[in-house]
């Protein structure tokens, strides 16, 4: 498993990438996409929507099931990735480039793991 070191991870298999301008990207981990299988639909929030740490902000549908995606942070959505909404397969192909939302005004965070900690957590799953 190749989880980028500069990202932070949640136990519900989302990644968080903090940007220098104070915003952050949120996406699904490689493990999550491989467990879900081929994704066919992604429901994303709208720009300006609030998201809450550890609560669902989106859902993804694979050929197996529909699953919630939890937010790693309490913040406000500034951008959604329309490309991913049109082509959910991008999450399967390049999970760490296929961000779902960009957030700003981060007020709170869920329990976040480093890449090593996340890999150890996945190993025990």
């Amino acid at each position: 498993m190749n989880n980028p070191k500069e990202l932070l991870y949640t136990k519900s298999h989302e990644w968080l990438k903090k940007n220098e301008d104070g915003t952050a990207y949120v996406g699904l981990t490689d493990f999550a996409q491989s467990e879900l299988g081929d994704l066919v639909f992604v429901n994303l929030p709208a720009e300006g929507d609030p998201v809450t740490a550890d609560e669902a902000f989106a859902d993804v549908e694979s050929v197996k099931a529909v699953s919630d995606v939890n937010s790693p942070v309490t913040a406000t959505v500034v951008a959604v990735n329309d490309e991913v909404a049109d082509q959910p397969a991008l999450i399967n192909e390049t999970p760490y480039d296929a961000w779902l939302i960009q957030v700003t005004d981060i007020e709170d965070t869920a329990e976040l793991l480093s890449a090593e900690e996340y890999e150890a957590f996945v190993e025990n799953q």
Partner: protein
Amino acid sequence: MKLIFERGNEGQALCLMPACDVPEVTLEGFEREGKLYLPHVSENELSRHYTEIAKRVHGVNDGFYPLGSCTMKYNPKVNEEAAALPGFVGVHPLQGDKNSQGCLEVLYKIEESLAEISGMDNVTLQPAAGAHGEFTGLLLIKSYLESIGATNRKKIIVPDSAHGTNPASAVMCGFEIVNIPSGADGCVDLEALSGAVGEDTAGLMLTNPNTVGVFDKNILEITKIVHDAGGLCYYDGANLNAVMGVVRPGDMGFDCIHFNLHKTFSTPHGGGGPGSGPVGCKAFLAPFLPGIRVNKKPCGCYTSGKAEKSFGEVKAFGGNFLVVVKALTYILTLGKEGIPEAAKNAVLNANYMQACLKDDFDLAYDVICMHEFVLTLDKFHKETGISALDLAKGLLDHGIHPPTMYFPLIVHEALMIEPTETEPKEMLDEAVAVFKELKKLAYENPQALHDAPVKTPVRRLDDVRAARTPVLRYNFE
């Protein structure tokens, strides 16, 4: 294959319509603007069309169909015979009680039978499917809570192993969902349940035996926790086939239940006709029931009416009445001895298959199961690259309908197997041999399983394309 619109040609027809014996009128302003697209085929062509479709599907009449949670038992032909009786087929729902005594008797008798089997007091036959029954049952609960002024009770507790229809039905009724995790044994985690109930609890929805095929041994404590908190208990009858005539949901503490007549009482599944999902309840919920309530008078005749505080209708008249006739036929055919015997054989068949397969595949829960059991192909998948989906596709080449895949969601690479009671031991042995053969193939020639199926009319489907760009109608232009 050709679609029905690609067969025949303009002018070909099935039959001659009788001459019109009333004056023709034109409804001004309602004329059809475009062409009406109807197939133009002879009876012979139509017959070929349906035969061709029938050759491309797999039903329980074609072979083994161990689709977990769906109870694909054999549908006895005598059911069809009863449902085809002219008195049932030709009845009109508005012809009045006096001229519908036989039909009212059917509704009365099946209500009596289902109430006895489930330990409930009353049953409505109106809901048209299992999930429709859930919706109806929850409306009963909602109506009752409103009648006692408990409008603050808005939360329905659902375990994470539940059928997806449970939370969906509750949301449709305006409830909020509280999800609780299952314990390591797949049963309700009592601590999680105790922590979840409160003054806002409307009720709990539960399947027992649950979706992993295990009977929850704490069931009496579970329903007590919910009742003590002031909530009601809803029994999802999806798995009633495992316990019918043996234990009763009413005795487990449930207040309300839906039955899936197509699962438990041998009526056809979807595609084989309309569905039926009757709802049973304890007497305190009965005043709110929808639909026709049938009473028997001392003279032995039947009258129909409405429940006093009925919340309304969920379907027209008596529901899908002919399906109800088939279920009653089944119940009367099996009788008081046959009903529990069917349940016990369903459990025996599942345990036999589980015992035959447990050395070759990992069980999600290594316990004596009820009517179904769940394999987890997680380790197998990591070792061979063959997923539950690949194995399922391999089964198709052997004339076996795959088990339910990737459900329940709490089990990785799940295959949920439910052989039902209507399969002989020989069939189970054949199926077990196929599973073992496919396991061998997974290690020796995994590509063969990635390529499967190769013997079916349609090869491996593109699931993603089917989900994203389905072609749902014929394009005439």
